[in-house]
């Protein structure tokens, strides 16, 4: 019963991802850009529940984020890949939940999400070819990666703690 409740709490936190993305609190931004909330949730989930749960969660969250964003690029492929990759890493050992490593993984994940969006916008939108590879995309990517990497040790650690309590209570 306790395990079920903990999992529910974790899943409930997933519902906060689109809301936080929409709210975009201005006090948690770097150069006007907030953290990648989907990365902050998907990382601990994948580390805890494995590659397939991670990939599935990536798919679901990708669908939701595509729904609340403008057309032109999709989050789905990169989130599936990230969920799967982090799930595989999580299966290897327990040392992965160190704060520094969590921050690093979140930073890499955010860079990959940004890179995926950047590539899609540059190559699939005609007007993008106007301005030599969209330097604003690089700025977005770096700013989001840094703020996500800084927020990850706090947010991801808390979510992992939520899941670990479940494990210890069994």
């Amino acid at each position, binding site marked *: 019963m306790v395990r079920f409740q903990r999992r529910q709490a974790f899943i409930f936190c997933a519902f906060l991802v689109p809301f936080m993305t929409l709210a975009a609190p201005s006090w948690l931004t770097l150069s006007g*850009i907030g953290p990648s909330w989907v990365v902050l949730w998907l990382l601990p989930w994948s580390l805890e529940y494995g590659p397939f749960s991670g990939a599935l969660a990536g798919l679901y969250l990708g669908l939701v984020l595509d729904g609340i964003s403008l057309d032109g690029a999709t989050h789905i492929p990169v989130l599936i890949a990230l969920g799967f990759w982090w799930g595989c890493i999580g299966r290897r050992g327990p040392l992965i939940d160190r704060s520094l490593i969590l921050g690093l993984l979140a930073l890499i994940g955010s860079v990959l999400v940004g890179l995926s969006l950047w590539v899609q916008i540059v190559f699939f939108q005609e007007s993008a070819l106007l301005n030599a590879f969209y330097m604003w995309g690089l700025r977005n990517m770096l700013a989001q990666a840094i703020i996500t990497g800084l927020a990850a040790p706090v947010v991801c650690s808390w979510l992992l703690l939520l899941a670990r309590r479940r494990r210890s209570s069994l």
Partner: protein
Amino acid sequence: MGGSNRSVIYGWRSLRRLWPWLLVAFSLCIVRWSKGAVFLDTYAFLTRPFWPGTAQRDWIKNGTQLEQESRLRLLEADNQRLRAMLSLKSSSKAGLISAAVISRSPNGWWQQIVLGKGSTAGIAQGDAVLGPGGLIGIIQSVTPITARVRLLTAPGSRIGVWNPRTKRHGILLGIGTNRPVIRFLDKDSKDSKSLSGDLLSTSPASTILPPNLPVGLIQTLDEQAIPAPEGIVQLIAAPEAIDWVQIQKF
């Protein structure tokens, strides 16, 4: 001898009797010389409490404003009638809907804002969204109680604009930065070149957007660009700081 002394004393006494009158005459000379300044100033000072108050000044201002509004209404009506004669689409202030901005991300990957009114308030896809000063975006999708706006700065955003001074058409392209790009459709003639600082508005003959909405000012212009001049545009309405917008039905 004694007689002459008496006459001097008599003259002196008569002068002492006359001096007030001489003083009055001198004062009046000053009044005449100063064009009555003392009198006017004194009059103004004394009658100040009885001057027309702010109420009368407001009446005059209100009257002037009313006259200008009436003239504007007449001109707008005239404009609508002429547009109808030319079979051009028109817009009116009656179609404006105010809505609060409930989510904004003007700087991230998606330059969009979400409004707190949707299809139940009459908002539809393609409606123009106005901030204070001009157009900021187009309604991209609506739900019953929300509407998502694609900002003019968003990658992939493209609308037709024109330069009213040179009467040249162009396309405003969003490239993700705060300043979209204008790409003119043809070269400017020698007589009428687009200049930095020129106003851009929606085309008066537009069938997609309301006509003659101000959009932005040309900030820099590359006249050597091929095939036609390109420039960077500073939008008049900055979406970063807008809490309320107006949606213009078209």
